[in-house]
């Protein structure tokens, strides 16, 4: 990835009168951290990076923005928001367009073909984080940890994030500007995480999820980080009636996670943010990927590939055989 080219494109984009800011990534404050970065003018682009640590999905910020009421007599700021997207992130944008959560004319999409991201925890197990912000690069198939003395080559298989092992769409599915050459998609690995759970018996599966959901502290980082969890009025916040109790226990936690999973069926683009941000290490990706797999296999539908597609859960065909209805 040629960072100079990215920064040049970014500078042009943020300098446009119709662009408010560009959302990208910059180096974090320590270790393998990378922070989402809001660039407001061309002077800010020098800090922009695109590295194997830029795993977070910035599409979340499109719906996360909290707009203050516009004072009487003033016009709302209608400038566009520009953002950098990898393949998976672009699918979230496409799905948001399908759902009209975001309008096409409100955004400028800068596509970045993605050679695959690092799972920070896997990397930190081998090379513990330090108080210095580390630099990681792609190095052919592998990764390179840029050291103060010698650089360390880290084999791809050792630290590649699970979502990237399973990735079928590393190139952005939509963009206004693409920086870098398309990458050659790799053969997606079998989803052993989902298969492992499918292989369990019902009782064993129940025990597995009981253990997982019991760890949940209901910080809602999964729903906060999810680019497609953006209902203005979430059932979890309802107080009258209370659909899901605030009480933290296995029963309520399960109600929360299953409600979220069902609401994401046919919408989840498998960006893996829910699982990445979870402080309890609950394997939410497996849950959401199972539903995505079912929708793909049973209905031949994959969300977030076509911004013009009909939304899966809201589409209807008169010739649907409806074989499951007795």
């Amino acid at each position, binding site marked *: 990835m040629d960072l100079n080219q990215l920064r040049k494109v970014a500078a042009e984009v943020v300098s446009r009168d119709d662009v408010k800011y560009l959302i990208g990534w910059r180096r974090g404050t320590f270790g393998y951290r990378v922070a989402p970065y809001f660039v407001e003018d061309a002077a800010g682009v020098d800090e922009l990076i695109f590295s194997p640590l830029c795993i977070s999905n910035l599409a*979340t910020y499109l719906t996360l923005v909290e707009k203050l009421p516009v004072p009487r007599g003033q016009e709302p700021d209608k400038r566009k928001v520009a953002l950098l997207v990898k393949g998976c992130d672009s699918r979230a944008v496409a799905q948001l367009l399908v759902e009209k959560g975001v309008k096409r004319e409100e955004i400028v999409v800068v596509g970045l073909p993605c050679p695959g991201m690092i799972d920070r925890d896997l990397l930190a197990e081998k090379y513990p984080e330090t108080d210095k912000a580390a630099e990681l690069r792609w190095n052919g198939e592998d990764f390179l940890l840029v050291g103060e003395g010698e650089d360390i080559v880290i084999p791809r298989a050792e630290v590649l994030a699970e979502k990237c092992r399973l990735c079928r769409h590393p190139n952005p599915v939509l963009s206004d500007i693409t920086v870098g050459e398309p990458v050659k998609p790799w053969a997606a690995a079998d989803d052993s995480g989902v298969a492992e759970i499918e292989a369990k018996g019902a009782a064993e599966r129940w025990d597995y999820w009981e253990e997982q959901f019991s760890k949940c502290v209901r910080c809602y980082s999964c729903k906060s980080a999810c680019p497609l969890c953006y209902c203005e009025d979430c059932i979890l916040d309802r107080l009258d009636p209370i659909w899901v*109790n605030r009480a933290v226990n296995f029963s309520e936690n399960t109600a929360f996670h299953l409600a979220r999973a069902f609401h994401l069926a046919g919408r989840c683009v498998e960006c893996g943010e829910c699982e990445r941000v979870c402080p309890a290490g609950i394997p939410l990706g497996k849950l959401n990927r199972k539903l995505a797999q079912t929708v793909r296999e049973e209905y031949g539908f994959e969300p977030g590939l076509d911004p013009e597609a009909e939304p899966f859960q809201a589409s209807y065909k008169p010739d649907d055989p409806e074989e499951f209805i007795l």
Partner: protein
Amino acid sequence: MSAMLLHKEKWSEFTGKLSGKNLWAPVVQGEMKKFAPVAEGDPVNLEEGNTTVPPKALLFPQTETLYRFSAGGEELELPEADEEIILLGVRPCDARAIALVENLFRWDFDDPYYLKRRELTTLIGLACNEPELNCFCPSVGGSPASTEGLDILLTDLGESYLLETITDKGKALAEECKDLLEEAPAGAVEQKEKLAQDALGKIKWSVDPEGIPEALPQLWEDPLWGRVSAPCLGCGICTYLCPTCYCFDIQDEIEGSAGRRCRMWDSCMFAEYTKHTSGHNPRPTRRERTRNRINHKYSYFVDKFGVIACVGCGRCSTLCPVNIDLIDILRQVKAAQ
């Protein structure tokens, strides 16, 4: 304070003895480290650093029943009485947090639920010989061997633990275990002090809080809040997993004709936290909510109780999914002053 020695070969006997008295200690469950009950013979994990969920959760449970009620019932039913509990392996920062939070629960009203539990709890600390990556306790008045809030402090001396009793509660417990303890030999306390000194030297981050409580109100509209809160996802990680955050909500849970009134953790980082029934929200965006989080810890609590409500455990910085770093924010506050 008296010092004794607990040989590591007596460790399982020691924990075995305590396990009969409702012992809780850190356990590792996948990525999650938390305090869990320890039965006799269960391994106790003291190797890892801080637990993901701080031990505040044992004194101030995430959900607790205040009382039960039923339609037509004349009496409110109080929850079952708590029992005595021993927390083993509490890090000094988390123990200090428990001492700080007590200010709140003793403030305008003595909170019977919290204070009863506090009374029933014995805290056995473990000094941090190896501080973690984001520790900064000395900057906010703590230290890797601080005894504040603790009843007993253990220090790993290699072959044995130095066991120092801090309170009468700690002394009484040590007395019960005296068969397993021996007099600390000459030099053991000095060795502990040396370890504590070395630990201080291993801490990477620091910020001088001098002037921050006074500066914060002046920086109310400073652009720094927009900057630092821009990446915030608005989740509850930094508050729920903070050892000094104590905000709660009270809700009724009703099933059929009976229910309970319960108290549960709440987070000032949630939009719903300050949302009025009218729909108006005085903290409408994550900018105001982030500003509140910092102001509460580094200004309001100081005004009220004379101490910063942060113990420098570093959890918020370590666990934030988008690298919002408390030290970075404090440094920006100092720079904007």
